[in-house]
């Protein structure tokens, strides 16, 4: 292990996170969160999603601002490409979650980060969604993530950061394990 004489600062408030962990152990009901998004179809394969509020710590919460995301498909799909493809949002979510985890774990281990760059790639065989071959699944056939990290740490310590981040990542869990999905409809 490296001896760090100075205190690393990755902009993560680890004390707050550890405090939250302790508090939520005592009050598990406050740990129950609900994440929300709404979406409205625009035209063609283009829709616009809005993220605004969520529920947690026993109360309704608001983001500091409303975020909007355009989702569409590229021109090779004969679409207008008004936004990222929905499957790309999955990669964005995974990268955002893992990188946040890396920064938090590094802070907790007193490792100063200088740069954390992720490159993500997911394979997908269109014969699935096009219904050409039933044996091909609709979704990804795998996701590859590469992290290039500049930090005051050994190669093994960096590998351990990234491994620990996967272990504690919500999005990593969502994409690696089954999730029950309920979709209902109503007539407007």
């Amino acid at each position, binding site marked *: 292990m490296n001896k760090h004489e100075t205190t690393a600062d990755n902009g993560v408030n680890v004390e707050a996170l550890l405090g939250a962990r302790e508090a939520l152990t005592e009050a598990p009901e406050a740990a129950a969160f609900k994440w929300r998004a709404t979406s409205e179809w625009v035209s063609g394969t283009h829709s616009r999603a809005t993220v605004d509020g969520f529920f947690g710590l026993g109360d309704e919460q608001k983001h500091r601002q409303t975020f909007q995301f355009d989702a569409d498909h590229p021109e090779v799909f004969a679409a207008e490409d008004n936004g990222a493809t929905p499957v790309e949002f999955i990669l964005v979510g995974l990268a955002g979650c893992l990188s946040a985890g890396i920064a938090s774990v590094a802070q907790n281990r007193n490792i100063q980060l200088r740069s954390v760059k992720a490159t993500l790639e997911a394979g997908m065989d269109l014969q699935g969604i096009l219904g050409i071959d039933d044996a091909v699944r609709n979704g990804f*056939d*795998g996701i590859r993530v590469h992290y290039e990290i500049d930090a005051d740490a050994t190669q093994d310590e960096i590998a351990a950061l990234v491994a620990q981040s996967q*272990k504690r990542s919500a999005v990593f869990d969502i994409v*690696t394990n089954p999730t029950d999905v309920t979709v209902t409809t109503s007539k407007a």
Partner: protein
Amino acid sequence: MSDRIQRWQAGITDVVVIGAGHSGLAMSHALSLRSIDHVVIERGEVANSWRTERWDSLRLLTPNWMSRLPGYRYEGNDPDGYMSVAEVVEFVAGYASRNAAPVHTGTTVTQVEQVAGGYRVSTSRGDWLCRALVLASGAFNVPVIPRLADGIPSDVAQLTAQRYRNPSELEDGAVLVVGASATGLQLAQEIRQSGRPVTLAVGEHVRMPRVYRGRDVQWWMLASGVLDQRIEDTDDPLRARRVPSPQLVGTPERATLDLNALQAQGIEIVGRLAGIRDDKALFSGSLRNVCALADLKMNRLLDAFDEWANEHGIATEVAPVERYAPTDVGSSPRLDCDLGKHVKTIVWATGFKPDYSWLDAPVFDRRGNLKHDRGVVDLPGLYVLGLPYLRRRKSSFIHGAEDDVNELSAHLSNYLDLTARRHVSGIAM
């Protein structure tokens, strides 16, 4: 109470110890040295779990030279070997008879409740009244099976490691072993050797070579002080107590048992069992990461051994530094398999928990875990022994009982003295 069946008093004593395994007997030894009146209550025979709840081929994960209890040690001619179940029974039973421990066998505890000045321990052979009580009934009483087992089709046989004895009991056909601790790997290996196809579902695990630089890995753990690490010095005590047993097996060849060895024997490894859907078992896509975590942790442990060997000037007495191939996960591990059509049997090696269903006292947290501080339970005069990492990493090992028992018997003795004095002064007034 009107519904109470006939009860009679079996006796009054200072301390009742529940369980005549190695922990309970070590405590009995410590109490005898302090001349504290006590009995040891045992539902079956001495070392009952070893007699009735272990698979045939099991051997201890620690070498014989490590097997010792207060005032007692292994004295056979194979110090580097690993005891079979029968040898463990003989070892523990020998300790009980040599100590002339006051064990009441064939006596099942049905209820424990607080009464004025102590506890009432109701048993199938009458009630004991005591001032202090020691729970030494074991850490591995009830198999933990994930809730998703409810969705497994009925034509698939299910078996826990507690009930499993040997491969000949299993139906022909493929077997899914769930869990990658010592138990899961050992069962997967012997079931594979019986000719059945075996898939092993792997979650977080602890990888270790059997022999490192020519010495048993447990020698390194003991000598370098790892086994003596105290729970209060760990970053996360709750997590430390949940760590699964290391992937080890005790064989005459002192062979390393890891996921690479199993794959070389034709066992398929897949991710953690994550769900059951449409008669298929679904496996997590996290296999690569749990293997990476285990490899990194093993290397950190070996680094610590090497550093310790250098600092203590024994680096030249042992064999050269070794490192092992990373766990091979293949190019794309399977994410599901057909149950019923392919897998005929599921073996759960998903851990155990203690059974305190007979303990009627407000000493459990919201998840049903016993609340205690290093064995001193949240109720005056109540103690617990033999749980993983109770006080030290070695607490659930046979040789780990001695230090815990010395400290907890001192605490208990002090408690008896204090309450006796209070009692006496109460009478004086």
